[in-house]
């Protein structure tokens, strides 16, 4: 049995596997399948200053080895989260990363300030949602905006701050460096890649939002590349994600430079995916005589 624990920004995770924000709600549904304590952590559904209704359906489209979504940050708002969801999550013996978003740096800061007085373990600031008109990816695709919003949230909280990056940029390393300079304690990447599908008979986009975020195995190689590039550009830890489906995928992302790994679409294919991935990582480490998973972080030997 390998040591699967990792430490990110002083927060101890029993294993490196975290269901990604947006796939796992606030944990209640998947708790009907297995105890949440088996997970390293949970990144909660992106939560904003006030309640948001999200986009009109269809919000989901299947694609080869992946899927598009355009949920549009539907959430009950931070006050509801803190009053009704967070207390329950904090009893689950797993690390809680509260994923937050907003239309303006001020909204993001306000949400972070409210979380600052709770016992939440980490804040994951989403500057990369492709499905909302304001904020979201608009923050994540400009170094200046990314820096501004990160700085605003940094001022509002002393919690460990993870900034979730968009892959829909020319240079993700520039954005990563900008948020590091603005006070991010870690970065998580990649969010979804912007995509589109059309029903060729009706000539209508399948998503009512026309475009949406691509996730799933199709984007895994992009995730590996970007995690590796960012790992070489910043000195803060990285939480990697993007199409991770197996324990071997998770190991690969960690060798590329991730200290922990989030699991998204795989939860839909198999609700037990995060739990299975933990088991498979352990099997790999045991089979290769590696005693601690943290020892593989960033160990890729580039040509």
């Amino acid at each position, binding site marked *: 049995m390998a040591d699967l624990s990792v430490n990110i920004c002083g927060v101890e995770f029993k294993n490196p596997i975290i269901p990604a924000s947006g796939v796992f709600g606030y944990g209640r549904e998947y708790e009907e399948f*297995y105890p949440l304590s088996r997970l390293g952590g949970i990144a909660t559904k992106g939560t904003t200053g006030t309640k948001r209704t999200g986009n009109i359906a269809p919000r989901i489209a*299947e694609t080869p080895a992946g899927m598009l979504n355009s949920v549009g940050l539907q959430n009950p708002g931070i006050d509801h989260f803190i009053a009704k969801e967070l207390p329950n999550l904090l009893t689950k013996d797993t690390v809680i990363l509260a994923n937050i978003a907003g239309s303006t740096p001020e909204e993001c800061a306000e949400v972070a300030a409210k979380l600052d007085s709770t016992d939440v373990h980490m804040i994951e600031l989403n500057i990369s949602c492709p499905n909302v008109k304001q904020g979201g990816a608009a923050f994540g695709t400009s170094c200046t905006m990314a820096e501004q919003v990160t700085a605003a949230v940094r001022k509002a909280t002393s919690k460990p701050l993870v900034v979730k990056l968009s892959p829909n940029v020319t240079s993700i390393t520039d954005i990563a460096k900008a948020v590091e300079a603005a006070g991010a304690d870690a970065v998580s990447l990649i969010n979804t890649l912007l995509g589109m599908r059309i029903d060729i008979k009706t000539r209508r986009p399948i998503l009512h939002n026309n475009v949406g975020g691509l996730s799933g195995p199709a984007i895994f190689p992009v995730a590996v590349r970007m995690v590796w590039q960012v790992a070489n550009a910043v000195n803060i830890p990285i939480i990697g994600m993007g199409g991770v489906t197996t324990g071997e995928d998770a190991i690969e992302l960690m060798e590329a430079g991730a200290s922990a790994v989030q699991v998204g679409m795989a939860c*839909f294919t198999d609700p037990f995916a995060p739990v299975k991935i933990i088991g498979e990582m352990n099997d790999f480490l045991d089979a290769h005589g590696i005693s601690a998973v943290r020892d593989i972080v960033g160990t890729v030997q580039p040509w």
Partner: protein
Amino acid sequence: MKYTQGCYPIVEKKLIAQDTVSITLRCPEVAAAAQPGQFVHILPKGYGLRRPISIAGIDPEAGTLRLVFAIRGKGTKELAGLNEGEYMDMIAPLGHGFTLKNDAQHVVLVGGGIGVPPMLPLAKFYGTKATAISGFRSFQQVILQEDLEALGAQTICCTEDGTAGAVKGFVTTPLEQLLSEGVDAVYACGPMPMLRAVADVCMRTGTYCEVSLEERMACGVGACLGCACRTRDEKGEEQFVHVCKNGPVFKAEEVQW
């Protein structure tokens, strides 16, 4: 632990109409828990997303579940290619089903096309108290009329082109006639235009109506918020609820048509 996921063997498979398959699975724990109107979430091999399929038969004694689905795309084609003895990866039972009324004297089950299968468990519950109106485009699509009759329901089959059944045209024509005689509840599943028309007729006549909706889904359990449906709550406030967890069955008056 409310949801079960497992791989369940196919004990019977039949092609019951053009591109329409009936599959019976042995899954005692699901058959013991399933309610009319609930659905199952099945993973076609090689695909990333599951396919939501309504439950067409629940037999707790035999420990089986019957599913009837149309081959709509590659995923359902893959599922339809499975044979007796092979396994289906299924999460079930899911969603919020139909409200069963013990004191009802006469109910109407309205199924349109591949919306007919979820009417079967209702027909089983209501027996001779049910009239089942089924609508199809043409005779090639007609399914499950004998099954409904075997459960005691009186059947009225409609086809748009008049190539089968007693009625040429839409389900709303016989429905309006039945409603004028007084009906305790209407349950409907089918394409959106049909559901809208059924809901409209029921609201006009003040008849209790529940509809089963369909939407593109990912998780199937209420976590991802993909399958949004616009409804109005008791306070009249518009909101998005989710077909997989809050539905698939909704009161017709809640839905924002």
